[in-house]
């Protein structure tokens, strides 16, 4: 009998098994539940139901609208911030960047509580501006996730390209539009993908700001509360499909650890 020999490859076995059990298997189970009914028979009713029910379609459109506006607002606020931070010649730049990241270590539910109190003070009645509150809340929650990847990309740009453009007679605006902006697109993409998807699903932000309109995440939440695993699984599949399309469109760099990179 051959004696067991330690090999470095075998180190990966526990994690590979873990991934199969808890990443692949849940996806398969979601798929199974989405296409079966309570009696365990195959059905496409959940699928057709989703696309023919005006309520669920309305929810889909509303989440896309919230996510789109939030992403745009975050981008418009974050880009100048990241640009100014990355191009400044401050010695304490690192500390200043930390100041922008710090809020992310405070629990998001506590941060939204704080925001809610301020909005309450400004608006009087939160229920009056549901869409605005949703966008403000999501922006408040996700802004650092947009600032960081853009900051990192601009910081890494080769400064000599900008100098060359300037030497060849471009003014500051031209240099920005033709050199810095195009080269910072990867950072923008990674920021957009970190804001858009959470903005479609993080329904707690809406709940806490008294916006009772559903977004995609709220649908899963409500099916979960009603123990309707089949309906919930179908919503999860629709979300997965959107995530896949989005990742493909954005050409997601699979090794880019944007969410983690932003946190550390």
């Amino acid at each position, binding site marked *: 009998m051959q004696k067991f020999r*330690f090999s*470095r490859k075998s*180190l*990966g*076995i*526990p*994690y*590979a098994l*873990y991934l199969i059990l808890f*990443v*692949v298997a*849940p*996806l398969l*189970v*979601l798929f199974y539940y989405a296409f079966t009914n309570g009696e365990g028979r195959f059905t496409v009713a959940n699928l057709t139901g989703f696309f023919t029910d005006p309520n669920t379609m309305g929810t889909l459109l509303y989440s896309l609208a919230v996510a789109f506006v939030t992403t745009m607002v975050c981008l418009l*606020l974050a880009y100048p*911030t990241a640009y*100014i*931070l990355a191009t400044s010649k401050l010695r304490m730049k*690192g*500390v200043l960047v*930390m*100041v922008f990241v*710090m*809020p*992310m270590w*405070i*629990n998001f*539910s*506590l*941060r939204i*509580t704080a*925001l809610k*109190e*301020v909005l*309450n*003070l400004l608006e009087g009645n939160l229920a009056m501006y549901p869409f605005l509150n949703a966008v403000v809340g999501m922006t*408040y929650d996700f*802004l*650092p996730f947009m600032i960081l990847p853009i900051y990192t990309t601009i910081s890494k740009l080769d400064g000599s390209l900008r100098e060359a453009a300037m030497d060849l007679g471009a003014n*500051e605006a031209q240099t920005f539009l033709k050199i810095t902006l195009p080269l910072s697109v990867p950072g923008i993409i990674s920021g957009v*993908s970190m804001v858009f*998807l*959470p903005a479609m699903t993080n*329904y*707690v932000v809406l709940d*806490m700001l008294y916006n009772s309109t559903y977004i995609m995440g709220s649908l899963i*939440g409500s099916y*979960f509360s009603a123990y309707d695993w089949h309906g*919930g*699984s179908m919503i*999860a599949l629709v*979300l997965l499909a959107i*995530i896949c399309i989005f*990742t493909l469109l954005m050409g997601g760099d*699979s*090794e880019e*650890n944007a969410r983690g990179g932003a*946190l*550390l």
Partner: protein
Amino acid sequence: MKKTVKIGYIALILLFIYIPILILAVYSFTDTANIGAKGHFSVKNYITLFTTEELLQMIIGTVLLAFGVAVLATILGTLGALGAFYSKKRISSAISVLNQVPVVNADVVTGFGICILLVVVFGVSKDTYIPLLVGQTTLCAPFVYLSVMPKIRQMDSSIYEAALDLGATPFTALWRVVIPQIVPGILSGFALAVTLSLDDYFIATYTKPATFDTISTYVVNATKGSQTSIKTALWALSTVIFVLVILFVLVMSLRSAKKEEG
């Protein structure tokens, strides 16, 4: 752009980020429950926070959970990264694709999927904490993997071979040569796992025992309720966490400043 415009812009964004937290911090030291109202200085929120059994249990539970999850995720993610790095191309790219799923997936979907698999299909009771631990570990381990992998790539592989040539067993060489070189990646992965677990709401809601609350799930439920003393005690909690974060950042910046000097 003019320098004053730049500074003004940065200041505005910082105000947007910090004003809510700071207002809450100020009001946590008063006896009023309404932001904007006049109140008197009081530390009763802090007394409530540190003497209410329910709040203390929730805070301790959240921290213990985060460390438990981080230990599991760090072991799994580190082993996974090492294994994937030394495996054949096909296996290693399969692992890295699957690793990416929880990273890009919405947490709602990850949590709901784990809940259906373990609770509905396999009938595991949520009271065992197994679904919760597995759920959060599934979220965190991929981030450990991603922060360890670059360190393994940067490693000088000839040192490992030298250790083998000098008579070390593969296991000893791994433990005494490879692991020490990737410690920074393991540590930052661990810190990342702790942060993700502390901030998680969705996976916890779908997988936690009914009687157990993390800070996130507790706060979300508390804002729906009308118990004023608990509501304002959470302002105190927010302020305590804010101060801890500031202290942590200060210590880290002082350390890195010292490193640059020396």
